[in-house]
């Protein structure tokens, strides 16, 4: 059905030009022929040489990041287009530091002068117009410099009467690094609306679904970076994401949601319509099964997390603990206390045991693929211009280090090359068992533990809600972390020693945290790969960044001895008064 067809003039896109990627630090210039890069370099050089306000300090460090984004989105429901959006822009973010590496204008927060904390951001020309770009960069740099001076003065004033408990530098020293991944590639956004419409039409004629939406996003992110230490890069990230979301309301009114997502880099990697249809149909069928399943009773005992559930558990519970996020020093005691509760407990566990001896975890942005499938956490260089590299986070159960940026912490003084926007993020998280069980052995162990507790059944969780996308009250929305640290359990089964299984619905984990991981009793020998989104910002923390960072997680199934599963708290809306328009009487 076509009524509102967007007319895209046939645009010949220079797709998939061969990337000229190189990481040769001796290369003289990154993106040598780029007008934008030239403008960035020239204004950077001028600012470092000349930018000074009377007797004030000159900048000791300056970095320009340009986020160039050509993005589109199209959302559809049941074969009808809901909305489309398509645009292009370039955003310049200036990072300018005054003072020195040990003590500068950053890592400080004062509500008395909140505007000085704002990042200097400017929309700059998408035309490669040298003069205009120089002017826009000049004005943004000027703003950044004045704010930096303000912030440094405020920080000195606030800290002069305090003895700092920890002497931690504000910025790490790094070797210059260059990476040139500049191509002229783009993603053609024009297939997105039709694809969204087609996939959404799969959910037609299913009155058990109260709502459903399919969104297709395309983006071609090109990051330009240059800093005053000689680092520079151009990094490109093509991305096409398809999200199919659906909700069903059970007879008691409880709403059940689920979704599938497909991420690829190019249109030719997108599964064909048969495969997409099958995925979406399977999800819709699961919702139908869940609707009719009994509500979870309270259960405490052994729980086995398989497949996607294991990956989500690692991402949602362990993930935020694997990053060393330094919160700014506030100038007032109330805020200092508030920030203290966001302190990552793993900072105090470095060198100690956080997992059983038979498990290790690495974050590996250099890993291209897992069993032939490209990984989404792959990254050549981070947003600080530090080369991304494999980091062994947990070795044989012992926590070795955390992922970090150039903002050091006492416990993690160096950058691991993990900066995304303003925070460290994992890349490909790989949970490696040194001793795993076969599927049968693991089940046997599960029932043994259940028997010990006098239970006639155990619980297996195969699917947990993601933080990627949900159907909100009004429409499609992306969400960050919620107050509860694990999303609702979507695929939960009571399993019995005779091999039978019963699906249950409305289940969530009760008081589950990172310390439970130390008590994993067994894992599978086989691992599976899942893609999901990671949000580095703890709930409630003010930060310039937000959003979801795509990662891949490779993990075995995880068996916990003592987990509580119960019905989630909160009341349930009553079921609809009128029947679904498609429902048969």
């Amino acid at each position, binding site marked *: 059905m076509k009524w509102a067809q967007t007319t895209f003039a046939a645009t010949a896109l220079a797709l998939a030009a061969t990337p000229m990627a190189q990481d040769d630090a001796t290369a003289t210039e990154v993106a040598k022929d780029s007008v934008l890069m030239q403008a960035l370099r020239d204004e950077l050089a001028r600012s470092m040489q000349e930018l000074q306000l009377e007797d004030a300090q000159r900048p000791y460090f300056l970095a320009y990041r340009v986020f160039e984004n050509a993005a589109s989105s199209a959302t559809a*429901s*049941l074969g009808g287009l809901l909305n489309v*959006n398509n645009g292009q822009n370039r955003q310049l973010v200036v990072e300018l530091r005054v003072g020195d590496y040990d003590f500068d204008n950053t890592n400080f927060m004062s509500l008395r002068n909140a505007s000085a904390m704002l990042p200097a951001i400017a929309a700059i020309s998408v035309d490669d117009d040298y003069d205009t770009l120089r*002017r826009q960069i000049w004005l943004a740099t000027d703003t950044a410099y004045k704010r930096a001076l303000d912030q440094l003065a405020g920080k000195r004033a606030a800290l002069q009467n305090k003895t700092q408990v920890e002497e931690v530098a504000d910025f790490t020293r790094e070797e210059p690094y260059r990476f040139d991944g500049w191509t002229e590639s783009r993603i053609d956004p024009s297939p997105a609306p039709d694809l969204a419409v087609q996939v959404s039409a799969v959910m037609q004629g299913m009155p058990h679904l109260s709502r459903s939406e399919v969104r297709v996003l395309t983006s071609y992110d090109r990051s330009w970076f240059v800093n005053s230490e000689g680092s520079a890069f151009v990094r490109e990230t093509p991305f096409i994401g398809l999200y199919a979301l659906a909700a069903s309301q059970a007879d008691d009114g409880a709403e059940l949601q689920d979704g599938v997502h497909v991420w690829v880099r190019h249109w030719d990697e997108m599964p064909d319509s048969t495969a997409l249809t099958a995925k979406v149909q399977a999800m819709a069928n699961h919702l139908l099964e869940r609707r009719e399943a009994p509500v979870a009773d309270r259960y405490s005992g052994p729980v086995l997390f398989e497949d996607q559930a294991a990956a989500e558990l690692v991402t949602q519970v362990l993930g935020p603990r694997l990053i060393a996020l330094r919160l700014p020093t506030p100038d007032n005691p109330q805020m200092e206390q508030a920030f203290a509760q966001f302190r990552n407990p793993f900072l105090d566990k470095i060198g100690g045991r956080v997992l059983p001896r038979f498990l290790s975890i690495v974050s590996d942005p250099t890993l291209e693929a897992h069993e032939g499938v490209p990984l989404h956490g792959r990254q050549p260089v981070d947003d600080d211009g530090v080369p991304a590299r494999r980091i062994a986070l947990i070795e044989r159960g012992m926590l070795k280090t955390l992922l970090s940026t150039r903002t050091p912490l006492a416990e993690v003084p160096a950058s691991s090359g993990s900066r995304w926007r303003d925070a460290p993020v994992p890349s490909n998280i790989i949970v490696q068992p040194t001793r795993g069980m076969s599927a049968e052995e693991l089940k046997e162990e599960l029932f043994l533990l259940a028997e010990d507790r006098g239970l006639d059944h155990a619980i297996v969780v195969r699917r947990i809600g993601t933080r990627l996308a949900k159907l909100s009250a009004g429409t499609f929305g992306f969400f960050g972390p919620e107050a509860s640290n694990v999303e609702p359990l979507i695929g939960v089964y009571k399993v019995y020693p005779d091999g039978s299984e019963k699906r249950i619905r409305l289940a969530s984990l009760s008081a589950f945290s990172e310390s439970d991981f130390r008590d994993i009793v067994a894992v599978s020998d086989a691992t599976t790969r899942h893609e999901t989104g990671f949000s580095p910002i703890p709930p409630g923390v003010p930060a310039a960044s937000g959003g979801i960072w795509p990662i891949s997680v490779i993990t075995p199934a995880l068996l916990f001895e003592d987990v509580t599963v119960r019905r989630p708290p909160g009341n349930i809306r009553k079921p609809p008064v*009128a029947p679904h328009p498609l429902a048969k009487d």
Partner: protein
Amino acid sequence: MDRTRTAVGFGARGSHLVTPALAVALFATSALADVLDVMRGELERSHQVLSDQKTPIYYLSYEITEDKTASVNGSFGAVTGWNQAETRGLDIDLRVGSPDFDNTRELRSQRGGFPNFRTIVQVPLADEALRTILWYQTDRKYKDALERFTMVRSDEQVSVEADDQSGDFSVEKAEQASEETAVIEVDRAAWEDRVRRFSAPFSASPHVFQANATIWADAETRWYVNTEGSAIKTSSAYYRISISASTRAEDGMVLPRTEQFFSLTPEGLPDDETVMATVRQMVSDLEALREAPLVEPYTGPAMLSGRASGVFFHEILGHRLEGHRQKGATEGQTFRKMVGEAVLPETFSVVFDPTIKRLGGTDLVGAYRYDNQGVKARRVPVIEDGVLTNFLMGRIPIEGFPKSNGHGRKNTGFAPVARQSNLIVEVSQTKTRDELKAQLLAMAEKEGKPFGLLFDRIQGGFTITGRSLPNAFNVTPTVVYRINLDGSEELVRGVDLIGTPLTAFSRIVAAGDDLAVFNGTCGAESGPVPVSAVSPSILVSQIEVQKKDKSQTRLPILSPPGNPASAFGAMLPGSAGARR
């Protein structure tokens, strides 16, 4: 919060997809002819089922607002981005109780909170999908209505008797209408060239730190059905060119200039030469403004240009004539008891007329055929020969005014209330500019003032109509002249025009023989809506100005790139001030 704001800029800025070369009709829509039928089918089904409930509904309406927008932005001679978007938002008005007393009644015992939380539900124009979403959202609305109806009933018991005993909803006659779906013509390559051209002259000035040019178009189509039997489809295109630029004076004061051209047709937009002449004027205004002297807080006589006067009337009069404000328990209700009284000189009349699409050579953005409650637009005189005669009415009745006059308006996601349309000030005896100026100087001299003020260009304004804060208004000018007693006119800066409504009204003494149109967006509790204000210039015997909020940021430290001279020293003094 009853604070309303009008500005040149429009709210949601979308912007653009792009296709190189060749004019293409973006989103050429073959609109589903039966959208209204699908809506009516689900409306009737819901009406039937929900009328059988213990608490039945008595009224239900659906409105779908589709916007297909395209925009291109430029700055200092280069394109900074483009956007193209298509959205379709759903609004449902569902009522339980009766027109005399329903779930939408004001909760007088409750103060504060966020009553106008906005959620936008997107809908497609496909049969099954549209019906499913209508069904699901109607059910949500019904449950919200039940909850609120319970609160309303208990509120009525704990609150004192209401001052205004009118009901909650007016009964109106069914309307039928259908328009062709409007399509916007977008030529992205040409638009890119134009925004480059329009924003380029600002780069010659080292002191301009922000300069943007935007071309924007929107094809807006609305489908509306209600249980009274109305079924309306309307559709219009809007085109706009906006230019804005800012400079900074040595003392840090940010000095903005904005201009915009609005049209209902692509050919109605001005040609490049006209826009470029405006841009050149803005460049020289900005240079002159930097050098202009500051004005200290002052009261005295002033002239307001037609555009300034239009916004002045919009703020002090228009918002206070919005019907529902006459019974809101927290509202100032300035004019509630003044119907039949003279509030302006008898040569002045004011009318709100959404049926006029063009006046004084300019298209009016506040024009529409039907409001957002299915009521036909009509001309509403509110001040006749100086006497207050009427209010702007949506379907919320007030004592003595039981019916709507087609001013129930909203943006997608908000509940409609009475809002302004095209405000037109009509004056039977006018004076030439020289006569107004002479009268101004005579008044200044008589009061012992060394000068009068002329408010020429303005950015917008706002007013507070509630009771918890002073009932003041603020009109924010960008170009102000001091008219000295010797008749010379000198550009000044640093002041906003402020006042309180009744005092300001009582000081209007005369009007000019000119007419100017201000097209803008008005923000209030039912969201941003497009409005126009058309007025001659006026003479006011006494106004008050207060100092503008001022940034303390210094000028850029380095000179502009490629310019060897310092930003401080290079500038010519400019032709500060004098204006013939």
